[in-house]
């Protein structure tokens, strides 16, 4: 079987095409779907195995990054979304998509995602970068021991671009400790990078995130959010130094999408 991926769009989404390409490359069938079509019921979320929330500036990131789309997801497609999660399906949020997942509360999430009628609380946030501006740069990531299905067997170090103004992951010490103890930290900005960096690990940690956190998953490992853009490193020609380094043809980002496809194929066959 070919997994079905729903790449979610709304006003201001702008990484939908390359996210779509990435999943296709990994062997999935994909559909670009506007959230209006999920709200109206024209498209049925349950027909899909993977929900991808791509990067961009949903609704202009007015109020705060991702918040308006998160409100729509929480209030207008809530039951479909909860069912999707309970069915053991996968969700990935990249950049703006990560911001959305954090603001819905799905990340980092709580012990049981479907806890009756009470709202899932937002327990972390992605705040303004400490540099106080939008920055686009490549970062080295250190893969953590985590339960995330998207990163199973992946390389220990990845190189991916970030491009955001609101990417500083921050949460209370309790939540951070919980993330640590439940293996929910998926990627950290690499401290041992060979590139020059200041005392706060900037710019290797490009936004000032707590504990250098670049990506997290929920406790099941099936909901994953990250600030870096794996869909922007699909072939070696995306790499900023392909003219000077010996690199494999496939980019570091592909494995993340392939893992998702493989998981679905194995689980839902």
């Amino acid at each position, binding site marked *: 079987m070919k997994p079905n991926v729903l790449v979610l769009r709304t006003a201001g989404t702008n990484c939908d095409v390359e996210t779509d390409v990435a999943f296709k490359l990994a062997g999935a069938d994909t559909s670009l779907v506007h959230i209006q079509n999920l709200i109206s019921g024209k498209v049925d979320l349950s027909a899909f195995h993977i929900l991808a929330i791509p990067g961009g500036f949903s609704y202009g990131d007015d109020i705060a990054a991702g918040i308006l789309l998160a409100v729509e997801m929480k209030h207008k497609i809530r039951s479909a979304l909860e069912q999707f999660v309970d069915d053991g399906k996968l969700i990935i949020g990249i950049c703006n998509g990560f911001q959305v997942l954090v603001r819905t509360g799905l990340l980092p999430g709580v012990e049981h995602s479907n806890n009756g009628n009470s709202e899932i609380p937002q327990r972390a946030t992605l705040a303004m970068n400490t540099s106080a501006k939008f920055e686009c740069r490549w970062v080295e990531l250190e893969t953590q021991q985590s339960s995330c299905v998207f990163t199973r067997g992946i390389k220990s170090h990845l190189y991916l671009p970030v491009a955001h103004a609101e990417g500083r992951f921050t949460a209370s010490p309790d939540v951070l400790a919980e993330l640590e103890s439940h293996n929910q930290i998926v990627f950290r900005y690499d401290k041992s990078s060979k590139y*020059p960096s200041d005392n706060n690990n900037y710019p290797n940690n490009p936004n000032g995130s707590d504990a250098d956190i670049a990506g997290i998953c929920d406790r099941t490992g099936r909901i994953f959010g990250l600030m870096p853009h794996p869909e922007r490193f699909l072939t070696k020609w995306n790499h900023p130094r392909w003219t000077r380094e010996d690199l494999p043809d496939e980019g570091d980002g592909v494995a993340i999408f392939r893992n998702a496809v493989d998981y679905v194929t194995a689980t839902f066959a």
Partner: protein
Amino acid sequence: MSSKVNEFQILNADDDELMRISREGTLSLNLDEMHAIQTHYAKLQRNPTDVELETIAQTWSEHCVHKTFKSIILYTEDGNVTEKIDGLFPTYIQRATEEIAKPWCVSVFVDNAGIIEFDDTYNLVFKVETHNHPSAIEPYGGAGTGIGGVIRDSLGTGLGAKPILNTDVFCFGLPDTRYEDLPKGTLHPKRVFKGVVSGVRDYGNRMGIPTANGAILFDTRYTANPLVFCGNVGLIPKNRCDKSVEPGDLVVAVGGRTGRDGIHGATFSSAELDDTSESLGSVVQIGNPIIEKKIVDALLQARDQNLYRSITDCGAGGFSSAVGEMGEDTGAEVHLENVPLKYEGLAPWEIWLSEAQERMVIAVPPENIEKLMQICEAEMVEATVLGSFTNSKRLQVFYEGEIVGDLDMQFLHKGLPQHVKKAIWTSPQHPEMSSRDEQTDDYTEDLLRLLACPNIASKEQVIRQYDHEVQGGIVIKPLVGVENDGPSDACVVTPIIGSPNAAIISNGINPKYSDVDPYISAAAAIDEALRNIVAVGGTVEKTALLDNFCWGNPDKPDRLGALVRAAKACYDIATAYGTPFISGKDSLYNEYRDTTTGEQRAIPSTLLISAICVMPDVRKAVTMDVKKPGNLIYVVGNTYAELGGSHYFSIHGYIGNKAPIVRTEAGKLTMQKLSAAIDRGFVRSCHDCSEGGIGVAAAEMAFAGGYGLSLNLNAIPTGEEIMSNDFLLFSESNSRFLVEVEPQKQTEFEDHMTEVAIGCLGSVTDSPVFTVNGIDGEQVIKTSIGTLKSSWQTPLHT
């Protein structure tokens, strides 16, 4: 007649009264034009309504019709006989393109952007615009709507191109200008700089378009008149490049609502600024990129379903211009009460002229309107039927059932009287500077100072604020090298992920040479744009050019004389290189007038050349950072003692008189041979020599690659005898490159380049030390690449 419409009383007005009407209405119409309008309305035996006169004024504005480039010019050069030029545009720009006759030019000068062939399925569109006057008054809004506007140009070309790349070039006053030296009523250059960058960043990033090419230049004469060039490249299916309008098609407005913002933008930008311009806030538009993103999302779907026959954007002049241009050959009627407004209270002419942003007009066959509306609704975009195209050959405007404007299309589009203008060019004489070899035997400090010149220094702080990775197709980035921070010559984009077909985008601009001769400046700008293309692996044969002239007041003969010089160079150099112009724009009247002192100042004559090249295999691309110790460094192309207008002279307070000319025969051969050498894999890195000459280019290659260089000046091939180290190091002669070659490819490379002047300057060293030996073999520069890099990075990092 509706009470909301007024007539302009011109039928019996004398000349003074006509000019008062023009001036007080910000119409920017001159006396000849007012007379032509008066004569036309005398035949009709009535006065024009405000809707009509405003429509004529914007249609005839310099901004919209480029009348200076079409006027007859009587040109005198250095007191010689007067030459009569029947239009700069047809004579020097259009004619060049026609004579070059490249089969891959699909559409030139007629649509909102030029179109060239890309691959079997797609073409590319490219347009560069300026948004200077608005950015002087309100930098953030002016620059944001500048990029927003040029994106709509791509979307309004053919049946709509998908925007794939932004390019931005800015000219500002010096960042360290003292507040007390600011001209009255102008913003500090730092404020303009920050506002412009933020405006472009916020608009481009939200649109999801990579901004991957650009330049920033500084000169005190840009303080009151900053320049903001915004460009966009789009990708369009080959079968969506033609447009037409049929009578009966509906006039449909798509996008944002109409308000009072941006009224008179077209006519305002066709006048000089003065110290009261800052009060003209309403001429600057307000941007909202998310609305524009939704329009792109909706219209590209409608395009692919063939739901409309023609499209254009609402730019200068708003609906009046968009509908007037689309219906030029047919006729159109529009009912203004249908226009969705941001708020109540707009007079009909304000609705008609408003330059509110994020609006497109499309011509929709009635049978498709329902489908179109469904798409727009699904994408949450407002679409409104305003009227229809007719076969009346008239532009008819209604408001609440009454006709408020009834214009003959023929008069509107062809009634503008051709102007006759005088132009004079007198070659300036500047004090000459001689070599400093007598005074110094160490040029390390000069090199460090040059690297720290704001024009040359790193723009990383700006570049990183733009998303240059979105869409996943930028394969040669604006910053390259071992630490991703060296200055790339050009950017390379693969618009279709996974396909090796690429487009290279570069630019060339050097207004400093205009102080010697605008001809040389224009020629050098073309050469530089082409060098940048070649340096990353492109070819002159597959390159098209765009010209953007920013000039002072062309009603002044000396300003116009400079413009003639530049236009002549465009023709000469473009035809010699075989690179056609496919689109262009001009922004004139970039002058500032202090109303109390009467002091008048113009910007340096500034020509931006943007270049686009189709590259069949991106895997052949090279970057400018040195790759490996032991590799050889060659200089390709002859050096001449050409330092007039150079940065080296500039840091010592001189302009000089011998600016670098373009020798097209040698230049073309050099570039062709080098392109072939890169294609055959002989070249590991390549960088063009421009501002700061060989010295700066070599330093940049070294610190970008993280290795030292050991170079000898006596290996530099010269076209004339040059006996001084500083001239060899810092001459800015055109058509030159520095090239890194592996020792095992040395023979192949040298054999391949036989007809071209080349010299092996030295080699890449493992130690991070940059040394240059002078003509006599003695060391003239020694420093670490860390010091070089730090000088280059520090100035604009705060």
